[in-house]
């Protein structure tokens, strides 16, 4: 009975994480299109949400066992998964509040690593796996995207340089519809799988299913719905950072950033070296701006973003470990997770109540919808 309650809490928490993942990553799909006015904000989120939903059904490859090769799978319990999810959700919310794009996958890995360290000690973590799946991709993704987008925008300017700016802008705005759609679809095939994998693992760990069973349809539908809903709500603070605060971009830069972003992610996926969509898009936007003029990039904003990337793993790990510690105070049962969920929801309500009292001034970007 207790384990069933814990299971359903884990499932609900996984869907909440999925929602924050979509919400957090809306910017990757639409920031460039919205800021260059290729699309109206509401149309952009509607399209991104729809394609994320469809994408979630297109690929059910459960490489989605996100922490595979990073923590000892025999030590993973429902409580460590729960604590890891709370670490990831907390980090996603903090970075959203600060308007900083950061990787939801790295936050989830950090949360699970922290919870595993709290439960098993450092021997439960495969450090080589952490370097391979987190550290190296985090170094490669933004630099590669920056260089590729820099070259791409210089080539684009060279090709269309003598044409009327109005015609060129209109053309690239049309292209942004395709690049944005491709990016959203790709996001759906990647990120919803993580949640499906976590729910599936929880069902297997709880003895509800065998490890070789197919993913139940309700898991696919609920994960696809959660990420699409999150995307539709849109993390507008991050959209504003990526779309307007890093560089003031023209439609050619927006297209180059998004086209290169899609190309880099799909190329890496093809080669079997998955990269963070957030790192790739942020790097591509910086590259598209820097190639035009180095001073076009607001390096202070870029520095804050990089700092958030560096802090993602340790901070989400710390929250994951702390959550696991708190949960264990109440034993193996469902009381601990219930207490943590109530505390998190209460903190969120307090945060939003404070924002409402402040007249919503803290969220200027919400008005862009």
């Amino acid at each position, binding site marked *: 009975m207790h384990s069933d309650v814990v299971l359903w809490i884990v499932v609900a928490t996984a869907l909440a994480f999925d929602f924050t993942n979509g919400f957090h990553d809306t910017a990757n799909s639409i920031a460039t299109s919205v800021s260059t006015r290729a699309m109206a904000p509401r149309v952009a989120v509607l399209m991104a949400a729809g394609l994320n939903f469809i*994408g979630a059904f*297109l*690929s059910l*490859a*459960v*490489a*989605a066992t996100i922490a595979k090769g990073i923590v000892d799978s025999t030590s993973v319990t429902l409580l460590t998964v729960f604590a890891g999810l709370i670490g990831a959700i907390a980090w996603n919310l903090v970075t959203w509040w600060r308007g900083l794009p950061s990787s939801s996958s790295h936050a989830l890995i950090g949360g699970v690593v922290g919870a595993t360290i709290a439960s098993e000690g450092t021997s439960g973590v495969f450090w*080589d*796996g952490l*370097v*391979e799946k987190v*550290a*190296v991709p985090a170094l*490669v993704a933004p630099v*590669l*995207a920056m*260089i*590729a*987008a820099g*070259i*791409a*925008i210089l*080539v*684009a300017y060279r*090709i*269309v340089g003598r*044409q*009327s700016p109005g*015609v*060129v802008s209109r*053309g*690239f705005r049309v*292209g942004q519809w*395709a690049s944005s759609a*491709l990016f959203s*679809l*790709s996001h759906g*095939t990647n990120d919803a799988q993580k949640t499906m994998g976590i729910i599936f693992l929880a069902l297997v760990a709880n003895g509800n299913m065998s490890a070789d069973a197919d993913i139940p349809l309700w898991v696919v539908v609920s994960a696809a719905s959660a990420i699409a809903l999150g995307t539709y709500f849109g993390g507008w603070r991050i959209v504003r950072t990526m779309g307007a605060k890093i560089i003031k971009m023209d439609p*050619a830069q927006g*297209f*180059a950033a998004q*086209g*290169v*972003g*899609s*190309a*880099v992610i*799909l*190329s*890496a*996926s*093809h*080669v*079997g*070296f998955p*990269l963070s969509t957030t790192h790739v898009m942020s790097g*591509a936007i910086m590259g598209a701006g820097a190639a035009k003029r180095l001073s076009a990039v607001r390096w202070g904003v870029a520095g804050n973003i990089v700092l958030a990337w560096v802090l993602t793993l340790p901070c989400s790990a710390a929250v994951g470990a702390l959550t696991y510690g708190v949960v264990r105070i109440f034993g193996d049962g469902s009381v601990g997770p219930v207490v943590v969920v109530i505390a998190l929801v209460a903190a969120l309500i307090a945060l939003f109540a404070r924002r409402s009292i402040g007249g919503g001034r803290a969220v200027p970007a919400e008005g862009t919808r």
Partner: protein
Amino acid sequence: MRLLGVVELGQIVEVIWVSIVAGVGITAIFSFVVLGSARSGEARRAGRPAASVAYALLAALCLVAFAAIVVVGVQIMLSKEA
């Protein structure tokens, strides 16, 4: 050869060159779509129908190439393995 003892250097090199070729390629191809459309309109207004058709053809061919790249992208998404 392995980087930091855990990541195949060859794999990273492949990601780098494939990404740069694909990223720059897709941007360049769509830039030719924009260029072809713009020049085709200019040529038509200037009363040069042959040039207008030639530029329109360039735009159309590049648009087909761009669409083909998008299809390849979707195929890569669909062929992901666990």
